[in-house]
């Protein structure tokens, strides 16, 4: 593996000069690369990217999100997905292609205030995202504790190939459902939920530190003895 150089950057800060490929959160002015967000800049042979430490959730196709039903019409539900855009869940994707507003009633399936775990199926800049609940584990969320973190910190909570989430799950006997939009649902015994919430809060506040994994492990093992 080639070497990756990291540094802290603020918007407008010069990251590097030369022939690189801008990957994300970087602008190129002549041969200079500037960060456009506060975060960690990574310079590697692939190019330059900035891992942001704050920012809104911008939907991406295939993202799994946790949303709250806020309204419904005859053909779709409106879902708040903690983003600057409301998402729509079309009734056809829930009731099937033969859906007819005469036969089925939307609020009987999901009413306002219900939480759903859903997948973003289409989104582009011109239209609001459309969700789907067809897929394993998707659909209404019956129970659990909801925790909100900054959407920019979700990748860190998941960890490399899900390592962080596995650590938290096995130490607390809880199941964590993570929405890419920064909403996390914890299901499990009450003391486990408490510990998992603490761990998630720690990930949020120490997301940029190299010592995070160690700190989380000591939090989880320390509290287990108590």
């Amino acid at each position: 593996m080639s070497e990756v150089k990291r540094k802290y950057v603020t918007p407008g800060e010069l990251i590097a000069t030369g022939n690189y490929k801008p990957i994300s959160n970087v602008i190129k002015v002549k041969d200079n690369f500037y960060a456009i967000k506060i975060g960690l800049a990574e310079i590697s042979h692939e190019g330059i990217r900035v891992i942001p430490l704050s920012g809104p959730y911008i939907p991406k196709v295939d993202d799994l999100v946790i949303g709250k039903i806020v309204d419904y019409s005859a053909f779709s539900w409106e879902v708040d997905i903690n983003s600057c855009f409301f998402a729509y869940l079309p009734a056809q994707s829930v009731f099937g292609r033969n859906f007819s507003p005469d036969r089925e009633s939307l609020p009987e399936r999901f009413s306002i205030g219900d939480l759903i775990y859903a997948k973003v199926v289409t989104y582009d800049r011109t239209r609001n995202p459309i969700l789907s609940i067809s897929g394993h584990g998707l659909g209404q969320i019956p129970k659990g504790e909801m925790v909100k973190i900054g959407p920019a910190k979700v990748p860190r909570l998941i960890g490399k190939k899900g390592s962080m989430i596995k650590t938290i799950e096995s130490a607390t006997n809880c199941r964590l459902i993570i929405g890419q939009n920064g909403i996390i649902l914890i299901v499990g015994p009450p003391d486990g939920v408490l510990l998992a919430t603490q761990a998630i809060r720690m990930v949020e506040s120490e997301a940029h530190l190299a010592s995070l994994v160690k700190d989380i492990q000591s939090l989880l093992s320390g509290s287990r003895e108590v």
Partner: protein
Amino acid sequence: MVELINEKGLRIDGRGVDELRPLRIEVGVLKNADGSSYIEMGKNKIVAAVYGPKEVHPKHLALPDRSVLRCRYHMAPFSVDVRKPPQPSRREIEISKVIREALEPALILEEYPRTAINIYLEVLQADGGSRCAGITASAVALADAGISMRDMVVACAAGKISGQVVIDLDDTEDKEGDADLPIAIMPNLNQVTLFQLDGIMAPEEFEKAFNMAVSACHQIYEVQREALIDKYFGKGEAGEE
């Protein structure tokens, strides 16, 4: 007539001609806002809050290709020595517009189509140069909110008092002085985003004032940067994804 510069070359508050007032910036002071900051520039105390991007209300104001930036500069009734009525005055509406236009070039609004970004500036105590301090604080709050920015924006005023060119005028100097030149720049891209001049300056005085204001902006930028670094990174080693 007030003596603005004494025989030792010091200004009424004891500063030299090229000296800034004490400056302090804090990031993330408001929990409910998406991004926030607090600035103290001399006796100025300003809180900046950023909300957004979020859906636009009323809906017809939304733009299909980019976000709408809205700014509200407001002075608290207790911010000046004679109570200021709380409703937006002509001056506040104008300054809101000026601040918005100073920040707009730095923001990549095309990234958030059909949304709005709202900036609220609350002046708790005013002492001249509050529009500049407001711009500086807004830029920090926008960065805290994680909105894509080409560069930070920093503002500082220069001016002429008692025939001498000085920087960072306070209230008395602004009122009694001969000229006031507030500017805002994007320090890394080296571009000017706000440029106002009130009063009369000779071309060479103007040039001197402009250069002094630009170098003051660079000093303020360092404070902005440190405030952000301090909030987000504190101490500790850079981690990995």
